[in-house]
């Protein structure tokens, strides 16, 4: 079966239809992404000489969006970015041994599931929005760039309100963090996802 024929399988709502192979791809990418998020990327970002306390560390932030973008680029199915990114975040948290975080409320400490799970969900939701609004019918690179901007924006929001690690910086540095995250997401995630999707779904072009 050719890739182009696969692309034309639509539901009666006009969206790409999920097949078993798509489910397997998304699950596999989510699982591999979770392993990478836990065991590889922390070492990579540390090796790049950037820590959480420096604003230019946002230039490596794109690696945390890889699972979602690659899953959507390979499958082009509704929800695959949200599922893969959430799955990867959940798995990386479960593997980390620190599954819960403390929240201080009214002088007391309460335990909740680690907020990075929610961060993953937010990043997936932010990145997939534009594709949903365009009914999963437009896969040009510009749309991928908008997607990267949405993902970076939600990642920044999550850094302010969920994990709260960006609150410490002044506003100008926060703008720089957002721009750096966008840039790295565009280069590290959106570009390969766009390229993969083009190769897989539009390869009949000479």
């Amino acid at each position, binding site marked *: 079966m050719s890739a*182009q024929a696969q692309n034309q399988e639509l539901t009666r709502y006009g969206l790409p239809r999920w097949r078993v192979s798509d489910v397997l791809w998304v699950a596999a990418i989510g699982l591999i992404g979770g392993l990478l998020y836990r065991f590889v990327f922390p070492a990579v970002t540390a090796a790049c000489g950037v820590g959480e306390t420096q604003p230019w560390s946002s230039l490596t932030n794109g690696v945390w969006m890889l699972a979602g973008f690659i899953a959507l680029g390979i499958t082009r199915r509704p929800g695959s970015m949200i599922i893969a990114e959430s799955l990867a975040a959940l798995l990386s948290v479960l593997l980390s041994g620190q599954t819960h975080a403390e929240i201080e409320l009214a002088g007391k400490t309460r335990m909740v599931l680690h907020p990075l799970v929610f961060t993953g969900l937010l990043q997936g939701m932010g990145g997939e929005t534009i594709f949903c609004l365009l009914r999963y019918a437009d896969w040009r690179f510009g749309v991928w760039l908008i997607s990267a901007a949405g993902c970076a924006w939600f990642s920044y929001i999550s850094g302010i309100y969920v994990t709260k690690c960006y609150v410490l910086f002044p506003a100008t540095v926060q703008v720089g963090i957002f721009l750096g995250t966008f840039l790295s997401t565009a280069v590290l995630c959106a570009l390969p996802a766009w390229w993969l999707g083009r190769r897989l779904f539009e390869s009949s072009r000479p």
Partner: protein
Amino acid sequence: MEKAATNRSGRQSSLWFGWTARDWAVVLICGVAFGLIYRLWDDLYTVMLVEWGWNLAPTSLINGMWFMGGFVPAAITRKPGACLFGESLAALVEVTVGPYTIDVGDFGPEIYRTVYIAGQGYPVFNMVLYVGILEGLAPEYVLGWFGYRRWDWMVWVLAGAAGGLIEFCTGIWMTHYYVFESTWTFWGLLLTSLIGVGLIGGSVAWAVGRLVWRGKEERI
């Protein structure tokens, strides 16, 4: 009219998502109007919870109210993005406009709020704005996953349930309002959020859409 992009399967998507001037008017009016209603509802809600001492779990049965700024324009216009845009606009109006009548905590009409980390205060945008954006986005996905073509009761209930779920998540990880000592209140809140936003709010949105679109519905 914008140039439509056609992909290989022949489907079309336009740059402005097919919005007409009427859609813009509906979404803008509904967003602002419901933003003002939210502002008043903040006070009412605080009175219910603080002064009357109602438990948050059963009170959440009326939480579908918080979604009407997105549900109503989406039900009326049935266009991509109406839910997200309307709800975001309503949240923006809620956090920027209106008198500060009573102390409603984080719900106050302030653009900036202070977050305390290790005793030090830092200014951030009022997070209610982002809670609103998320509450518009989650139902938007459900509507979008039905291709913005199905607007029956079941789809609206699913959209509302997605909204209730994301509201529960933001209550845990963003505003921390839903982190309690009582396990029963916590899980009861999840249940009543799903019922209140999904069944009740979704049904209201479905009814609004039915009133507007009765007799005009396209067959799939």
